[in-house]
């Protein structure tokens, strides 16, 4: 079985500064894979390059066997790769409903779109209750739900989530994490970037630790969770 996403020797630079210095990893269909690492390690840069917002300086990205490095972001989402960016980035002045509709921008099946909207409202009932409300008025956690719901509206094969738990209360975070597992159980493949290493590793099939632009350690979620260096560096133990 070939991997759904294959990243090989990926390099990304901002001007002269190389933020991602040759990383390789792959994701199999139906897996949750997580990237963890300290601030500035290059996790978001990696996601932004996979989704086409940034052009790589070197290396390849294959999705479903097809090369997508260098493909425009608006084309990549149409191939089935959705990216829920860091900081939620919902369209604050539009309603919740309009945000979800934008998630389905490339789709032309009104009935299917409606069905998926209803699904999002079932997944996150609060969004349904407030569907006409401006998205900017939602709380941080609710905005995160909207961002996830919006990414799902494109019917992705691979969902990339950048720090979905950022700034959330423990209860809210629990809710987001259990939603991620629920999505995986429905067959979704997920690439999860998290600051909260404990939470991410406990639900991931595989994890990669990023340090200043490189992957320093890889393994199953359970392996990494019990790795001494990981525990020291990311789980606050000494």
């Amino acid at each position: 079985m070939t991997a759904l996403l294959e990243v090989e020797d990926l390099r990304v630079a901002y001007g002269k500064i190389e933020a991602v210095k040759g990383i390789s990893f792959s994701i199999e269909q139906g897996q949750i894979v997580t990237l963890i690492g300290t601030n500035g390690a290059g996790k978001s840069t990696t996601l932004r390059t996979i989704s086409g917002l940034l052009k790589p300086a070197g290396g390849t990205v294959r999705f479903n066997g097809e090369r997508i490095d260098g493909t425009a972001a608006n084309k990549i989402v149409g191939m089935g790769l959705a990216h829920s960016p860091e900081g939620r980035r919902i369209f604050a002045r539009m309603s919740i409903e309009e945000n979800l509709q934008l998630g389905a921008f490339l789709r032309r099946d009104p009935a299917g779109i409606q069905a998926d909207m209803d699904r999002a409202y079932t997944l996150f009932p609060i969004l349904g209750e407030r569907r006409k409300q401006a998205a900017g008025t939602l709380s941080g956690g609710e905005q995160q739900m909207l961002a996830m719901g919006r990414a799902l509206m494109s019917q992705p094969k691979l969902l990339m989530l950048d720090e979905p738990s950022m700034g959330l209360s423990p209860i809210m975070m629990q809710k987001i994490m259990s939603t991620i597992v629920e999505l995986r159980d429905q067959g979704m493949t997920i690439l999860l970037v998290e600051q909260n290493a404990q939470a991410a590793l406990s639900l991931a099939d595989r994890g990669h630790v990023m340090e200043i632009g490189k992957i320093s350690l890889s393994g199953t979620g359970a392996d990494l969770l019990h790795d001494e260096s990981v525990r020291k560096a990311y789980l606050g133990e000494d």
Partner: protein
Amino acid sequence: MHELPQNLANGLFLGAMYGLIAVGYTMVYGIIQLINFAHGEIFMTGAFGALAVYSKLGANVSIWLALPLMIVGGVATATLVAVLAERFAYRPLRNAPRLAPLITAIGLSIFLQQLVWGFPGNKSARVFPQLPGGPFHLGSVVFQSADIFVVVAAVLSTLFLAYFVRSTRTGRAMQATAQDPDTAKLMGIDTDKVIVIAFAIGAVFAAIAGISSGLRYGQIEYNMGFLNGLFAFTAAVLGGIGNIYGAMLGGLVLGLAQTLSAAYIQYIPGMSQFGSQDWSGVWAFVILILVLMFRPQGLLGERVADRA
């Protein structure tokens, strides 16, 4: 004071024209934060495109047949110029520091003026055809066919744009791109296409304004875009740059400010020398400064806080 209705009407006609031009500044700024200083020249090329069509038709074609063709010609010319400018002058600088596209815009403005100036024919002013009919009387107000043209054009264009932005797929894409271009791309929106459409819509509005100007004043000039562009830009800022209704409102406020100041400032004791037509531009900017002191975001502008 008995001329007040007339002065208000004149301000409205002038303001409608400013508003039509201002829409182009505001749409482009709203999406890529570029002050397109060459937009006044887009307005000018629209008028010249219309005149070129008229000249080709010959003088014995009825104006009512010529006018629609002139509109098509003017709109096509202005749109072509705007789209080419976006593609070859601005797009290569999309990620450059802000100053680079701004200077490019100023250069483009001078280039377009000189280009049109270089065409054979009278340099200072070219005669523009007139609409027959009129003058019309409404109470004490007198107006011409061209005044009706500009008001009807402004109302129809604004209604169309409001519908377009709010209710069409492309309009939604435009709003999303204005709010957050990167995230818009992640939704599958071709933001390059959206930007071209914003330039094109601005050009259509500017061309209609250019034709209105020709019809109202009976002549057009290669440098007509300079002052009109400057006032329209002021109108866009006054109304709240980025907001299309603000552009129209700002245009009206500015048109009225100019007309009313030219008519009445001179009657204020001690102000008699500040009231002529020559001073109306100064008063327009005084209004701008006053509004911005109390509402820095403009009359209908929103604070751009949700932009990361």
